[in-house]
């Protein structure tokens, strides 16, 4: 088992009343939740990862690249690989138990959003006529499901050895009390109201792969919330990168990657 703990940043704001009113978990506005992750969590998959973002828990398995299966024949692309994403939530992932339905609208939307972000980093042109499956299962949902899913997918793709341009990392941000931007929103904070911004970015080249807003932001606020989300992505990148290096140190790598 391999866990990586985030060392929480030492920050300035220690206003007791502020902490109280923004949420009850007592995080500072620019602190991420505790991140724990493991690569190679599913032995049968080509690559896999398990990631916790606070109480949000996600398991991702990657299969491939392999020759396109018969039921996807029509999707063979002579120029690039076919990326097959599937996002699903375990029946016990939320507070109330729900029987999963096939073709659930919310899951399908998440699938499309994940596909969009992954497409921008996977070097599909190197693997023509192949298929890559990314299977995401949310075990516990506690806010930031998309972020956890995407970050875990990045780890699983690395584990599977799929060629990537760089990492793709997602993070959320919102506004507390309508003025203070805060990062990495938990489910409780989501339900407290206020719009939530999700950003997926390529942290090295600082490009944005995907954004989504749950409600409208006023244009005055958007800039600082966006900046907060990007800062969150960069912090998250450091943790994920660290996890990857530690993992390869342990299992070893031909050209001494991660050993320096």
């Amino acid at each position, binding site marked *: 088992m391999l866990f990586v703990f985030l060392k929480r940043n030492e920050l300035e704001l220690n206003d*007791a009343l502020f902490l109280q009113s923004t949420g*009850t*978990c*007592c995080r500072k506005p620019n602190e991420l939740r505790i991140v724990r992750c493991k690569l190679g969590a599913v032995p049968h998959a080509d690559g896999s990862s398990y990631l916790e973002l606070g109480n949000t828990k996600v398991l991702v398995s990657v299969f491939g690249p392999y020759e396109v299966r018969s039921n996807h024949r029509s999707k063979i692309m002579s120029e690039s690989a076919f990326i097959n994403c599937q996002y699903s939530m375990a029946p016990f992932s939320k*507070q*109330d138990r729900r029987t999963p339905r096939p073709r659930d609208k919310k899951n399908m939307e998440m699938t499309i959003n994940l596909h969009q972000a992954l497409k921008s980093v996977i070097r599909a042109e190197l693997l023509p006529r192949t298929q890559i499956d990314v299977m995401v299962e949310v075990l*516990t949902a*506690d806010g930031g499901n998309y972020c956890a899913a995407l970050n875990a997918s990045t780890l699983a793709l690395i584990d599977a050895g799929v060629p990537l341009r760089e990492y793709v990392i997602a993070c959320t941000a919102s506004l507390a009390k309508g003025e203070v931007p805060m990062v990495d929103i938990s489910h409780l904070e989501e339900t407290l109201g206020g719009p939530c911004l999700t950003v997926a970015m390529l942290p090295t080249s600082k490009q944005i792969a995907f954004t989504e807003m749950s409600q409208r932001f006023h244009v*005055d606020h958007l800039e600082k919330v966006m900046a907060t989300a990007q800062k969150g992505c960069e912090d998250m990148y450091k943790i994920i990168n660290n996890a990857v290096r530690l993992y390869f140190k342990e299992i070893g790598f031909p050209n001494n990657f991660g050993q320096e």
Partner: protein
Amino acid sequence: MLKQKTFFRTNKKGDILKVVREHYLREDIWCGSRACGVCKAKDNEKVLDAKPKSKSAAVGEDHYIFLDTNAILDQIDALEDPHLTNLVILQTVMEEVKHRSSAAYKRLHEVTLDKSRKCYVFVNEHRFETFVERKQGETTNDRNDRAIRVAALWYQNHLHIKSVLLTDDAENRRKAQEMGLIAKPLSEYAEGTDSPTLCERLSSKRWGELRDEDQTKAYTPHLPMSAIQAGIKAGKLFKGPYFASRDNCLEATVKLDKRDVLLQGKASLNRAIDGDTVVVEILPESEWKAPSNLVVTSEDTDDVLEDASAEKQPTGRVVGIINRKFQQFCGILQVSPVAGHTRHLFVPAKRHIPKIRIETRQSERLADQRIVVAIDGWPVESKYPQGHFVRALGKIGDQETENEVLLLEHDIPCYKFSEAVLADLPDNDWTISDEELAKRQNLKNIVICSVDPPGCTDIDDALHCFELPNGNYEAGVHIADVSHFIRPGTNIDKEAAHRATTVYLTDQRIDMVPDLLSSNLCSLRGGEERLAFSCVWELSPQAEIISTRYHKSVIKSAAALTYGEAQAKIEDDTDQTAVATSLRCLYKLAKILKQRRIDNGALTLASPEIRFRIDPKTKEPLEVVAKPLLGTMSMVEEFMLLANVSVAEKILLEFPECALLRRHPEPPPMNFDPLIKAAGHQGFNIDASTGKNLSLSLDNAVKENDPYFNTMLRILTTRCMQQALYFSSGMTQKEMFFHYGLAAPIYTHFTSPIRRYSDVIVHRLLAACIGADVTYSDLLDKRKTDDLCGNLNYRKRMAQYAARASVMLHTHLFFRNKTELEEGYILFVKKNALQILIPKYGLEGTVILSSKDKNKPSPFEYNSDNHTQSAGDVVFHSFDRVVVQMSLDRSNVQHEKLQLKLVEPEVPGFSITTEGELVPAVEDTCG
């Protein structure tokens, strides 16, 4: 360190949900003491003294004070006393207080923000040493008490300064002492201090036995909460807000969803106080009663005479009180006749609030003062609720004190503007910059003038009008551009939003924005360049709108006229100046606009309005003047209405979700019953089915020999109306936007931004529509707008009541040492009284007809079919003319009241001709 908080809860459907929440425990939560060398808090975060000197004889050593939740909830008044300093408020306590009483939480929050109090909020639930996990079988209360003790102990060990836990719970004290803490009841601690006010402000909950005179068996105990909930679920009990009757202290109503329930008699009221949320049981139909028509002011009588003629109503009795609305009350002390006694009765100024028993040692000093008292509770065996002294306001009868009482009772913020607010003001010698000039339309060369009442210094509207070459007219309304000075989010903006409106009292004005803006920079004074927001129409000669333009502008008003001056200019045909011709155009158009509005069904209402001429030095009223009605008033009004409607349409079009509008709901037909009945007796038929019909039938109800009759009908109509309200368009259904009184499909307030905050918001919205300004997030948030509307509506209502009360106060001052004969009209005939309106003073009074003296029975007989009182040949109907003698009855210091005595028509043995006759008991109802 991460902890999980797991708990189960059920949702609406009854499913059980498991909730898991993160709960971080940290080391970087500081203790906030200057004595601490370990914590890395910054200097400004260290609130507590390094050497907290003991202020109470109850504790010898230096110490910090810790309080538990109940101590704070019960003793919030004592806690507000500045004598207690170096307090540590724990998060556990803070949250429990918030959960139990939001009013107490707000006040506690204020205390924690006050720097002089040295009060520190410690987030104990997240500091890893002070976090306490609930043990198996431990109740939440016990866990919280333990958390408080653990935190207090941690402080003691961390700082080596004693922690004193103040709690009224003996068990909690015992456990604390076992742990090595000092624990005391708050009352014992307070009595050890040398502050007299602190002790007085202690809650009366610590009183033991009641004295004999307070004992009563009139009340029954309230049901336990479980029984109440079961009863409500079973449909046997009903929950609703409790309204005490204003006339009769033994009567009240509880408003339920479908119907109102009448409560009569002490036992049924069962210790409920106006504003509480109560649970009632409805009595069997055989015991139903009708609301009494009597005016009862003394609590000591027990007999409730019900009105046999009136219709019986569902009647009930209070079996439980869910939520007490314990506010603070103004009033006076009724000193106990036993010398040296410390418990006295307090008589609130509001008559529908019962007397309150309080304890004070300063009774002699307070005897002639107006004081403020809070209620703590009402034990079942006690005749009176128990309370405690909060503060004294000043001497009874002083104009200043009375004014303060008035402001306090109506919750009007009247403190001076803070430094932070004044810092947002522009300089005294502010002038319009060229940059600003370039952005705006220059209207300096157009002849614009303002028309206002005499003595008005906050001029927020000005007008212009001229004929265009094509035969149409251009008319413009120019409103002071207050939103240029009050920028969103600044301190001045927050303060204005809090105050919401300028309050006009008879002898003073309480401004919404500081004087520099209200009477100088924003005021559109004659001959000075000012920033304005203009709404300009092209109108056809039939006053139909051809086009509308809105723009920010710079204007230079040619003249600031009064209504009278403007009227004179219009009527003087020799005056051909630009101002006069412009006024004539406006006047002509306004007449057409008004006619069209009335044809659409707008109501013309009346209310008796008067002004006092006040001696500027002594501030005493010298003379009463009725407000004159001039044509120019309605001219200005018409154009303001036109501007408001035009702006409302514009902002609703651009911001359908978050426009701030004003609506006036149609009153339910029931409201008109008294009006229809009263007019019916005079042979007039009032049709209130629609606004238009009502307006028409009011116009037709004219008595040729009595011009005041129609005005009275209109006054009565006004009473039938509901309040107009501000609302956010995104939170209300479209069908409800209608303004009944003006017969306008939509309406807003745009024309008085100096004195109303609603107009400031509308200005901002309109500015955003025309691209003159940018929006900000709160402006576009419909929920925020809705919250704001709530405050605006509340303040507006309170300002209205305060203005009325102020007139009443001055009427009383005016009648000191005066007796006058006046003509009056009967508004209502009641079972034991006549309600009389005196047009000259615009006030109402009651002549009680029943006699208290049993040897001299009242000569009057009441006929309930046609609502008349007769004595011999004399019959009183509604709207009859009478002559009454007015004087001030000062026998009750708290409620000085106008005394009305009947002079004409003559009723032998009742009416007076000379002094020394039978004096009828008299009440005025406006107090």
